[in-house]
């Protein structure tokens, strides 16, 4: 057992995959000698050599496009896009090929590739370094999209993504990279795409979130219990696609009050699908409209104001109380 932060946990998962299977390759911009701009790939080139861990030229479409070719050849490429804000340079390779080649070739060329990318706000970073646009991927048939919320889940979910026979977008909440440490067991763990987790049981309301927003969500659940005796069930979606609708439905049926928290812009955001799922599966259990606690429909501001943009535990508490129509003295 070791206490790892998320960077170390992901590094561990990469190392384990590289050790276990010589068809795994790791590449991207600055992932080699530099060990990645966040040090996620630290030490890998030394251990596995520059055939298996290498820097590409500065070209995102190339990175994903070569991953597609390698996957067709039978390898398991795990490539990195330096920030999700630069994944759009490769979007055509993702949508038009990674997501389709298995289908197009009628099963001949599975695409067991992983595209890692840091995403999200809160890091005092430059423009294009703080967005949360997971919907672009989650809405794309042929892809799977997962986002971990802690070191341990990151390590297990990356293992699950690498082993998955389909292309997986693995988005890393960079705000959590070094935010906290967690016990990560010695033995390998594997969480395949598609299952959510109940992080905290409760019966008064359900709080659904994922990625970096799990932290304020859990915090809010703590506050609501401590200060208002409201017991929230907290769900970590982990996988946006496939979406674990059973987990959402079960909790919705239990509590009848559901809020979804994400930092992506609200409109056409991930929360809309959660609302729609609940509308379809749990409509008659609903006591109140589902609340979306989300990023605003603007570009996340430069870092001086990013906190104002990002949902935090205070906002979540406020919104949950509003949903429950409970007045809380604030301020």
């Amino acid at each position: 057992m070791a206490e790892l932060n998320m960077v170390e946990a992901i590094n561990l998962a990469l190392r384990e995959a590289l050790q276990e299977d010589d068809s795994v390759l790791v590449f991207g911009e600055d992932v080699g000698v530099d060990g990645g701009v966040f040090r996620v790939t630290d030490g890998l080139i030394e251990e596995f050599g520059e055939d298996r861990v290498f820097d590409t030229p500065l070209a995102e479409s190339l990175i994903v496009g070569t991953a597609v070719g390698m996957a067709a050849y039978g390898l398991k490429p795990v490539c990195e896009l330096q920030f999700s804000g630069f994944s759009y340079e490769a979007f055509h390779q993702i949508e038009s090929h990674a997501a389709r080649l298995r289908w197009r070739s009628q099963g001949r060329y599975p695409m067991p590739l992983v595209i890692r990318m840091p995403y999200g706000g809160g890091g005092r970073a430059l423009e294009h370094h703080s967005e949360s646009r997971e919907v672009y991927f989650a809405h794309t048939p042929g892809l799977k999209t997962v986002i971990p919320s802690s070191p341990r889940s990151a390590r297990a979910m990356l293992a699950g993504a690498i082993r998955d026979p389909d292309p997986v977008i693995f988005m890393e909440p960079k705000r959590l990279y070094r935010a906290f440490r967690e016990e990560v067991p010695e033995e390998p763990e594997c969480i395949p795409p598609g299952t959510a987790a109940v992080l905290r049981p409760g019966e008064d309301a359900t709080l659904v979130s994922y990625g970096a927003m799990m932290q304020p969500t859990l915090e809010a659940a703590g506050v609501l219990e401590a200060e208002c005796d409201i017991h929230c069930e907290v769900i970590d979606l982990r996988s946006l696609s496939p979406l674990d609708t059973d987990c959402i439905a079960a909790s919705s049926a239990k509590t009848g009050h559901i809020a979804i928290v994400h930092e992506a812009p609200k409109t056409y955001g991930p929360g809309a699908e959660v609302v729609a799922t609940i509308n379809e599966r749990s409509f008659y259990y609903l006591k109140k409209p589902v609340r979306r606690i989300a990023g605003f429909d603007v570009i996340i501001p430069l870092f001086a104001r990013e906190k104002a943009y990002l949902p935090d535990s205070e906002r979540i508490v406020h919104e949950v109380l509003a949903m429950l129509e409970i007045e809380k003295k604030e301020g």
Partner: protein
Amino acid sequence: MKSEFSTEVLRILDTEGRADTSLLPDVDDELLLQMLKAMIRARRVDEKRLELQRRGDIGTFAPVKGQEAAQIGAIANLQKNDWMIPAFRESAAMLWRGTPISQLLLYDAGYNEGGLIDGDSHDFPIAIPVATQLPHAAGIAYAAKYRGDAVVAMTFFGDGATSEGDFHEAMNFAALQQLPLVFICQNNHWAISVPRERQTRSRTLAQKALAYGMPGLLVDGNDLLAVYAACEDAVERARGGKGPTLIECDTYRMEVHTTADDPSRYRDQEEVEAWAARDPIDRVVSYARERGAIDDAAIEAFEQEVEEDIRNAWKEACQRMAELDGTPLAMFEHLYAEATPAVQAQREWYRRYLDRSGE
């Protein structure tokens, strides 16, 4: 320091089929005939598809007519374990590599099943988004090199494709990593309605290789032997670890861009006729006849064989279609290794929906 580059064209057969013997590659009669027949077969399949499309039996497709030498001269250098990564106009190359005619027609008729790649094939399905297959070819070549396999990748694309960013990114990486990869640019002078001169200002497309420190070669793309010779060299160098090559085949799209296109809007019939005089098949026929490798009777016999094959292929395709027509649920297949819960549920919903009248 001054460096130089050539913009000369490699040509071995002139338009009358007379060979420049000093440049002749080592092609025996058997291979020559194999290639000639492949060109004729591709031409006839093209004609059939056009006919089928015009009468509404299949959908739109991109005819190969005029580019048979560029494709066959290149692809004939590959071995079975090598990889071909085509664009969307490579029917000649695909047929050479073993795609059944019936499979092509099934695809043309709009069935996902037409895209099937055989389990022991090492070829890619067609890539419609222009130039996007070039990075795939680079990935394949990287993988082959990583695995230590003596495998070469060959990718096809057009003159228009050279304007796309993906061309640039793939060429750069292939040269940097000295990958076993041959880039076959079929400069057929048109990208739909845009002529080559309005695609780029560079004198040749071959010279674009200089930007990557890669050898670039311009060949007469309607000259089977010139294409063969250039590609033989490039494939050999690729297999020998000497890196990639760009080969520009100067050729011409004799037909419509796709069957949705009307070239009379943008090009003159004279241009097409001038190129007809440089037909890639005629030239080889003359040469092979001259060389004594073939006579009219043999050609006639082969033409009949091809006609028969095509007839059978269409029959087979029609049978396949008839079988497939009752299977709308196939649209849910092959997207994921295992259908996701959402796809499963939708498939199930749709199955019941279709069955509802029976319930």
